[in-house]
């Protein structure tokens, strides 16, 4: 499979703790994106990290990318109950208009108050 594979499939933590989700892939990529999906809603884009970048931050979110290991991680610091959602990584291999995002199956995060 060319898609990203998230790990773990499910994660349960207490409010205030940090949550780390990982994504592994098998092909070379142009960029990798993380999305969040709340129950019953569509996906919402969180962060895009390009293949020549190693780390990006957005608020309480930190994404790292290791192209040598073909892996990425999403860290949510000081989690809140509102962070409860499924998180997906998506890889873009490149190839101009013929390339499309390939989504993983997601990590289901539960943050308990």
């Amino acid at each position, binding site marked *: 499979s060319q898609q990203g594979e998230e790990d773990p499939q499910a994660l349960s933590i207490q409010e205030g703790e940090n949550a780390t989700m990982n994504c592994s892939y098998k092909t070379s990529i142009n960029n990798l994106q993380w999305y969040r999906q709340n129950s019953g809603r569509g996906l919402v884009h969180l962060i*895009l990290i390009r293949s020549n970048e190693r780390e990006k931050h957005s608020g309480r979110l930190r994404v790292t990318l290791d192209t040598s290991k073909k892996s990425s991680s999403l860290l949510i610091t000081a989690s809140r109950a509102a962070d409860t959602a499924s998180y997906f990584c998506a890889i873009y291999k490149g190839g101009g208009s013929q390339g499309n995002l390939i989504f993983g199956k997601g990590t289901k995060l539960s943050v308990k108050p």
Partner: protein
Amino acid sequence: DAGITQSPRYKITETGRQVTLMCHQTWSHSYMFWYRQDLGHGLRLIYYSAAADITDKGEVPDGYVVSRSKTENFPLTLESATRSQTSVYFCASSNWTHQPQHFGDGTRLSIL
């Protein structure tokens, strides 16, 4: 309000019937996409469109038809629905394939 809207949100139909799912975006994005989301499979691309009158197959196109006569609309038609097409369908749009996609809230389709 700017955004991407899908209709209907819920639909129940019978096998063999034709059903059309609607998608409308107000950003004038060039690219539009249709995905289906099933347990155990994540999101799978059905069809996508690079511009009006330009469409192409994704990973799972069989049994589906799309059209795009206007930039803002991208309807998905199941010509003869089957139970295996029971799923949640998401429409998305973006300026380019590598850029972030904006998703609608989905259509939950049940085929009896």
